[in-house]
């Protein structure tokens, strides 16, 4: 009897310690996770704009960094933002068109090469375009000699390059979603003489809006964050995207522009973070099935 009492007490104590220990570990990780975020928020409101002697709680917090950010001549931040949104939205729209067409064929039709095509798409996706940057640079350079609006330092050329990566996971995602849409609707429309293309436009796409939105947003995030190819292909200051342009704040005189850089960082993060919260559920299910976010 007595023995059991002691055991109970002991177990309770161990349980409490267990909880405390867990809380400590978690709080250390939370501090780690928030460390850069907190400092960058603090710096963006610190009017001294200097990395040296920065305090966690700035003295005389103000919006001067944000104001300065928007009227810098040498770093046209607003133009970069506009460029980034233009390229990311333009590309994502095209991707949705191209992948819903291909996804439909792979979902509804049986044809020679279907299996090879599906596997090939995944395999090709394993080789990032980044690896072929030299060849892509030369292709775009060459294109630009004959079709100037697709050449180096043009947004259309960059979008064309990004379109190379359009198929792949996106096609799989749309195909898998189309597979879940019952065929009875299409079959009755088919009796009325609708072509497969009409079936896609009038029946499938309205039903598949959720997955098309996900494809759009995932593509948006990927393109918005891409800087390697953009950096290689875009050269003029006013053509850059945010992901490339942001680096110019830290290229030299890091210390002097720390506040402005922090303000720029916060603004650059907004769309991606907003989309992340919006898509959290899809992202997490996508993750467990093997899609790695870049």
């Amino acid at each position, binding site marked *: 009897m007595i023995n059991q009492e002691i055991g109970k007490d002991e177990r309770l104590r161990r349980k409490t310690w267990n909880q405390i220990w867990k809380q400590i570990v978690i709080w250390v990780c939370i501090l780690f996770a928030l460390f850069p975020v907190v400092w960058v928020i603090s710096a963006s409101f610190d009017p001294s704009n200097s990395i040296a002697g920065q305090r966690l709680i700035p003295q005389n917090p103000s919006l001067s960094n944000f104001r300065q950010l928007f009227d810098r001549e040498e770093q046209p931040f607003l133009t970069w933002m506009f460029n980034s949104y233009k390229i990311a939205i333009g590309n994502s729209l095209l991707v949705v068109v191209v992948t819903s*067409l291909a996804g439909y064929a792979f979902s509804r*039709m049986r044809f020679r090469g279907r299996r090879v095509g599906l596997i090939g798409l995944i395999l090709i996706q394993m*080789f990032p*375009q980044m690896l*072929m940057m*030299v060849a892509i640079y030369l292709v775009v350079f060459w294109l630009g000699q004959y079709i100037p609006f697709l050449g180096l330092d043009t947004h259309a050329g960059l979008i*064309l390059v990004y*379109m190379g990566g359009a198929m792949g996971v996106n096609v799989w995602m749309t195909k898998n979603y189309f597979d879940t849409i019952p065929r009875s609707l299409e079959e009755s429309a088919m009796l009325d003489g609708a072509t497969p293309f009409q079936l896609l436009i009038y029946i499938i796409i309205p039903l598949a809006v959720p997955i098309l939105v996900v494809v759009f947003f995932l593509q948006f995030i990927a393109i918005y964050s891409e800087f390697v190819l953009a950096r290689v292909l875009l050269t003029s200051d006013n053509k850059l995207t945010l992901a490339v342009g942001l680096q110019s704040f830290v290229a030299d005189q890091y210390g002097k522009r720390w506040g402005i850089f922090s303000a720029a960082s916060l603004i650059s*993060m907004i769309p991606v973070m907003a989309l992340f919260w919006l898509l959290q559920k899809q992202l997490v299910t996508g993750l467990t099935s093997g899609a790695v976010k870049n």
Partner: protein
Amino acid sequence: MGNGSTPLTKTLAPIKTGSFGLLVKILLLGLVNALAFWVAVVLLQQRYYWMLALLLLGVAAIDYIYLSARTYPLRFIVPGTIFLAIMVIYPMVYTIYVSFTNYGTGHLLSKEMVVAQYTNRYIQRKDLPTYQAEVFKNPDEEFAFLLTDTSGQQLVAVNGQAVPLAETPLPPSDDDGDGSYERLGHYERQSVLKIFPYLSQLQELTFIYEGLLLKTRSPNEFGYFARQYRYDLERDMLTNLETGTDYYAVDGNFQSSNGELLDIGYKTTIGRRNFRNLFTDRRYAEPFIQVFVWTITFALISVVETFALGLLLAVLLNDVQLKLRGLYRSILIIPYAMPAFVTCLIWRGLFNTELGIINSALLVPLFGKAIPWFQDPFWAKVAVLIVNLWLGFPYMMLICSGALQSIPHELYEAAMVDGASGWKRFRTITFPLMLSQVTPLLIASFAFNFNNLNVIYLVTKGRPPIPGAITPTGATDILISYTYRMAFESGSGGNYGLAAAVSLLIFLLVSIITLVNIKSSRMFKEVPQYD
């Protein structure tokens, strides 16, 4: 996958399209053909016969696909495939080709173009006189020159020949009688300003006088020039006529017998030399091997550290008795929700040795000592790994949480009945079951970090530099950043051939990793074999 349903194509043998749809289709197809025709003309002019053949084949295929009912399903796939072909498959093949060439700064032009550049070089002969020149132009935009040397002797240069003024067929006339000629025959004198737009054209003009070559030095001055180089097609060599040295064409350069190279080389295939250099030439091989080893180390440590922390947090947050665990999870996900191109730059600022918060607010107050983060190879590597831990642990936490949910609860209950401790339950049940589920994701994560240019390029740019490396190489460079810098950020110009060779090696390694992954996850078991 609906195996029981009827495939559409069989029921749809004769496909009817509305007349409007047909019109749109024909218009689009016509547009594609017109564009292809235009490109074909360009290709023909440039003599890119291989590309021309590929283009014609491609267009023929597109026309067939959109006109024949049998290829109906392909019509949906073609648009995406065209982009894939231009921007992925062609660059892939081209990368392979470039990796066997010496393409790069100093070897950008074809051999013919380089030879033409050298044989069109002239040097002035200082032993012969120079002339003041007056420029005359006729209505056909042809030029004549009146040349006067220091002794007052005058020549007229026109149509590639120069003759003394007295023998010229162009009668000079001094209309206003001021002692200088306004016209030579139907050629009229031009002011310097007027000839300005023609300068480059004038520089090309050469004239022969008594077997010697006359040419402009500046718009109003002529001198005697001699060709600097002569090309001997049979022996494939350039001879410097001034010094008499012969330069033979060897492997993309013109090289003299004592090993001296001419500045401009030409583009040519050089077999496996790029690959051989990477492994055997010490100047290339030492940094390359160093980068290679660090790439593997970096990817491996990144996976292990993020997985360890992610797993720990997933297990801790899986405890139902833990308060606020929903909130904790949302906070811990934050690094994953922020775009890496921003957060990497933030970390770079925080790590800054002189000014960064990490030194000034943490290390100096706590330990009284600053760490030279980006100056010391070891600490630079530590910094990169810390940033990558921060970027990657939420992802691992998410996938581990998912995997934890799927482990059947009965297993734990059975283990509890057997009296297994928490640690033992983790070791014998949680960990092995979890590992078998997430292994494909861990391999994918390894492959991703293998090419994680974001972190390296944005946080350290590969710094600190490896002393004595022939291409720009740093202690934290991984293969992909090494390639990038070699092609686009080298001070002495890009070496595209070598960069392509490294890319090809990365291709190869990624393929191996991918194959292993496919084997381990049996990724394609869900794609049934239809035909």
